């Protein structure tokens, strides 16, 4: 709204229009939220409640899904369970009610840690490389600048599966397949194009005069970059970092093809959580819920920069 507009401007929608528009949007938002709410609810259901018909909205909450995601269990005879001492904590108690005992931790925790390490590692690298290049493209005369920038962007157009074939062969040759380092390098290379484009947009918005003033005061170009530009670009760098994090966190195609155990991340792992007799839906839902929490937090944090991120900086508001 420009300042020239009073509250009674001719182009202001009437209260009735607003209410009606709001109603439709809220209706869509609620429909959109149903699957998400459902998955969170399912994570607190017992396996029987999760597959009941009709689907239950009200149920007795249980932590079995969360237990099953974090532990492996082994089936035992009742006689054997009686000979054991008191249950070791809540999950053991739940397991014993089903004639099982907790055998050990599941693979979910290592997979989750892999996701964290690979996401953060690739983000730090991509943002570091991206900031330097973005500054270079923004402030210096680089030969073939536009071609280079377009080349950097075009690396994002490759279908991941197409890239995965030679990467798979290359990693197999140099011993990087199923390693965290290999995944970090790969995700860095995918993210760096986004980082360069986004950060170039942010740095373009910082007036050059700041650096010039600093350089006239005797700073070198590099000092001016570190002490003047970087502090100014903090918000942009943070937003870019979150975008890179989210990509690496969510990535599935490369992860499913290039990792099998050692470096496997959560997205390929969650769908293969199997209980007895098919998928253990509460456990899958619990694994999913834990995995989605950081994304929800980040989305709320990123609200203002979302548009930039999804359009590679093409639309800035």
């Amino acid at each position, binding site marked *: 709204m420009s300042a020239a507009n009073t509250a009674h401007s001719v182009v202001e929608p009437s209260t009735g229009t607003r209410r009606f528009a709001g109603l439709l949007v809220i209706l869509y938002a609620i429909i959109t939220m149903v699957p998400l709410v459902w998955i969170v609810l399912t994570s607190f259901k017992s396996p029987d409640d999760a597959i*009941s018909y009709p689907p239950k909205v009200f149920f007795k909450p249980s932590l079995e899904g969360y237990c099953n995601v974090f532990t492996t269990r082994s089936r035992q005879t009742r006689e054997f369970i009686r000979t054991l001492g008191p249950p070791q904590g809540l999950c053991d108690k739940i397991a014993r009610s089903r004639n099982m005992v907790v055998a050990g931790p599941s693979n979910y925790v290592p997979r989750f840690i892999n996701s964290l390490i690979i996401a953060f590692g690739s983000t730090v690298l991509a943002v570091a490389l991206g900031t330097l290049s973005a500054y270079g493209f923004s402030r210096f005369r680089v030969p073939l600048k536009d071609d280079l920038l377009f080349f950097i962007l*075009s690396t994002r157009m490759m*279908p991941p599966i197409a890239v995965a074939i030679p990467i798979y062969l290359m990693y197999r040759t140099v011993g990087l397949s199923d390693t965290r380092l290999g995944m970090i390098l790969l995700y860095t290379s995918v993210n760096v194009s986004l980082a360069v484009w986004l950060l170039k947009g942010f740095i373009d918005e910082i007036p050059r005069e700041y*650096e010039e003033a600093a350089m006239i005061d005797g700073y070198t170009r590099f000092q001016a970059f570190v002490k003047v530009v970087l502090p100014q670009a903090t918000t942009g760098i943070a937003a870019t970092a979150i975008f890179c994090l989210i990509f690496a966190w969510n990535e599935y195609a490369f992860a499913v093809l290039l990792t099998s155990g050692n470096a496997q991340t959560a997205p390929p792992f969650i769908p293969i959580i199997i209980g007895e007799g098919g998928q253990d839906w509460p456990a899958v839902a619990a694994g*999913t819920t834990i995995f989605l929490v950081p994304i929800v937090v980040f989305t709320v944090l990123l609200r203002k920069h979302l548009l930039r991120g999804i359009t590679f900086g093409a639309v800035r508001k």
Partner: protein
Amino acid sequence: MNDLSTSSQITYRAVPIRSGVIRRIRGLSDRTLAWIFITPTIVLLLAINIFPLVWTIYLSFTNYRANRPNAPTIWLGTDWYQSILTDPDIWAAMQVTAHFVVWTVLIETVLGFGLAFLIDKKFRGHGLWTTIILLPMMLSPAVVGNFWTFLYQPQIGLFNYVVAFFTGRDASSFQMLGDVTLSPWAIVIVDAWMWTPYVMLICLAGLRSIPDYIYEAAEVDRASNWRQFWSITLPMALPFIMLAVLFRGIENFKMFDMVNLLTGGGPGSTTEVASITLKRAAFESWRTGYSSAFAIILFVTVFGLANIYVKALNRVKSR
């Protein structure tokens, strides 16, 4: 800073003119610094993107199989390309892909623009609801595909239950993921659920970029709301809509995660998009040469279509 206009030109050329300043800038020259700043990124992309791409091109002319690395490699020339371009299965996959791209982009654009148009009316609390609507597009497509599989379960799934509730059919009488006619739509629904907010966000930016005075002028000229929409709103938001279509088109052409988890290309090959065909050829039957050729064809296709589209986009923008 006594002369801003020249000095800003100067940094653009990155050659300070005042000799006094030159002497005072110690350390690295700008040219060296530019090299040091840009080279690492380019090297990484060369190593992890371009080198593999060149390797793919090489492999696409050979009979190499990744599961038999020690077998002698024979140069085949363009045999794979010829066999792919005449292979009915490949054309079927391309058709499936095209269907998905057209339907998902169409639905997402109509829904997304509609939502953006409503949100632009700035009702109370629109910021909060917008954020809620945006959530699905931030999630992992793989995880989304996985929990929609649960919603689509014929006997226990919420989706089937809701459809049954409103249509009076039996909830276990239809299988969204196992039925030849329904499974493509099952994927379109999930994709629309996930990516409509994306189109909405870009369209919203487009609507907010239209200055109020144009509408005020239209009001003065007594233009009807309908006329205003067709003559002002839509044409001015068009570049943004096209940008959204471009991004969604490219992304959905590469669609893999969700399809792989929802249907894996099945039943039969009704939802076998190009990426799934490629995965089967490359990582299941290990026809590396063949799949490399297909990968190159896909890449050229995406790249070519995107380029044509960008030209059209620029023409719309320059109008």
